């Protein structure tokens, strides 16, 4: 099922949580809504579900305007951040709940509901736990029961709110791989919310980066990482370093010196240069480069992170070097960013 969010605005008590957001989700796609807290990602998910109504704008399921449909009519599978399993029901009853509350002829007989629950438990690899209560399950198991329960109603769209947020790192990685497998097998259009970029980039077909109630960028993991389209995305996704620079005659200047990068199409004036700390070319001499004094050097996993103080403005940037690189021992380092991008100064 395709989902189209068209110019949606949402206010809570006059306070805007989403400004004019539009998003097309293709059928069968796995989409991540990624952003810091307060970016509106959960609000957008709840609007798609029908747990909230938009202040303005429309939400389409396929060609049908679903904006005024209730959550029951939308037939979405929603997995809540803290799972919201019914604690007084067994695992099987939790999963069968959506079928049990159907009316009249659409409600399957009790035996069929039980069969379906076991089938879904198989799918989420929890066979044999039918009779357990949620309190008797681990966090990872509850998460999977919640997903099975959401899938039991054969939803048009599967929505997950911070699905792995409450789990520890190990379980989180396993469940991530497992969710991808389930998605590939069942083909549900799936949207999940996360503040964890690694999770979003690894799992999703496309990532929607959000900030302050707006969508900053939509794209594949490669798009988002390699060509961020705003200072926010540059800063939010992966590591980044930035320097205030000036553009003159198509050349980029740092203070009073050109740094050997040309930007023929950039408008002249103040700008900010963004680059990835690991994507730098170290230079020996320095005519047309960025040079700085080493103020700190830290070992981070497989690399060494070096903090440099640049020029007279005492601007600090970070670059990453291979662990054994001799430059890390020096007091001055000169480099030039490999892939970089310029944004007009704010």
């Amino acid at each position, binding site marked *: 099922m395709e989902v189209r969010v068209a110019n949606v605005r949402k206010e809570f008590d006059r306070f805007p949580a989403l400004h004019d957001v539009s998003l097309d989700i293709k059928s069968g796609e796995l989409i991540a809504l990624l952003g810091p807290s307060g970016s509106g990602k959960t609000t957008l998910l709840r609007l798609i*579900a029908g*747990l909230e109504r938009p202040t303005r704008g429309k939400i389409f399921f396929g060609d049908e305007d679903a904006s005024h449909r*209730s*959550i*029951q009519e939308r*037939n*979405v*599978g*929603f997995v*809540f951040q*803290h799972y*919201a*399993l*019914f*604690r*007084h029901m067994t695992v099987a009853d939790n999963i069968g*709940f*959506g079928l049990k*509350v*159907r009316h009249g002829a659409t409600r399957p007989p009790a035996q069929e509901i039980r069969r379906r629950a076991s089938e879904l438990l198989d799918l989420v*690899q929890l066979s044999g736990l039918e009779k357990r209560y949620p*309190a*008797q*399950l*681990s*966090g*990872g*198991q509850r998460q999977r029961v919640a997903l099975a*329960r*959401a899938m*039991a*109603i054969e939803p048009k769209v599967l929505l997950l709110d911070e699905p792995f947020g409450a789990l*520890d790192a*190990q*379980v989180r990685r*396993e469940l991530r791989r*497992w969710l991808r497998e389930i998605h590939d097998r069942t083909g549900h259009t799936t949207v999940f919310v996360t503040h964890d970029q690694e999770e979003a980039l690894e799992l999703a077909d496309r990532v929607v980066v959000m900030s302050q109630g707006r969508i900053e960028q939509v794209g594949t993991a490669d798009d988002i990482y390699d060509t961020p389209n705003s200072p926010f995305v540059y800063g939010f996704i992966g590591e980044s370093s930035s320097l205030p620079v000036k553009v003159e005659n198509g050349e980029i200047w740092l203070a009073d010196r050109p740094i050997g990068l040309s930007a023929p199409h950039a408008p002249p004036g103040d700008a900010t240069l963004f680059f990835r700390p690991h994507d730098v070319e170290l230079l020996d001499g320095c005519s047309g480069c960025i040079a700085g004094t080493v103020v700190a050097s830290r070992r981070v996993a497989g690399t060494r992170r070096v903090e440099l103080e640049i020029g007279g403005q005492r601007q600090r940037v970070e670059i990453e070097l291979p662990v054994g690189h001799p430059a890390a021992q020096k007091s001055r380092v000169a480099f030039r960013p490999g892939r970089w991008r310029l944004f007009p100064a704010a």
Partner: protein
Amino acid sequence: MADPEIKSWAPDHESRSAAVTESRPAQAVLMAIAFGFLGIFLLLPLIIVFHEALAKGLDAYTQALSDSDTRSAIRLTLLVAAISVPLNVVFGISAAWAIAKFEFKGKAFLTTLIDLPFSVSPVISGLVYVLLFGAQGLLGGWLKANGIQILFAVPGIVLATVFVTFPFVARELIPLMQEQGNGDEEAALSLGANGWQTFWYVTLPNVKWGLLYGVLLCNARAMGEFGAVSVVSGHIRGLTNTMPLHVEILYNEYNAVGAFAVASLLAGLALVTLVLKTLLEMRYGAEIAASRGH
């Protein structure tokens, strides 16, 4: 798949450090004061009630209880409880739902209002109804013209009892529902349940022990209420006397056995309530909110 974080079911024992533990003599004195006080002011009277009730033997006791006025007092008390407790269950659930599950103007006011019966003397609660429904009262004339009898009749007694007992269920459920939030209800709705199914299958089971606890306390108070009921009942023997009022009448007539026999029933109710309450707290303490002690 390994899930390392199976939830532990071991209860948390509050252990205190040696530094804040009192010396043995101090402990003994504190315990002696507590037990002595409870013994003299609570346990002793309870024993006397049963002692006096049975002072002239079991026959006199059963005879006192089979007196027709006593019988009708018992029936009236049961009737009043049977009406006012369900009313307060409905009211309590509605109020708790409104306060805990959604936002509206005047919420703080409603919350305060629910506590009013606790802060007002029961006699005042009764007097309010006299001023409202009495012959000289605000609605007295209209009621009389339409032949409706509220004061000095069952409706008045029920109203006074409802007034006095209405915080019990609501106060029990509000913190419980607030703590549980809307998550389970949203989950039920997302799975296609309608409002009624959500309430019946999800909300109610989530609060059932808290609700039972509230009902228990509400019932104990409904059956034991004296002040408010005394003002509105008119003390008509065999008609508008509830058990507590009947105890007073019998006692004033120097019918000690009769008075204490009826009192023993009320004391028995208190004991049963206490036992059930303790059982509930032991078993479902975590699910019963912390608004105890009324």
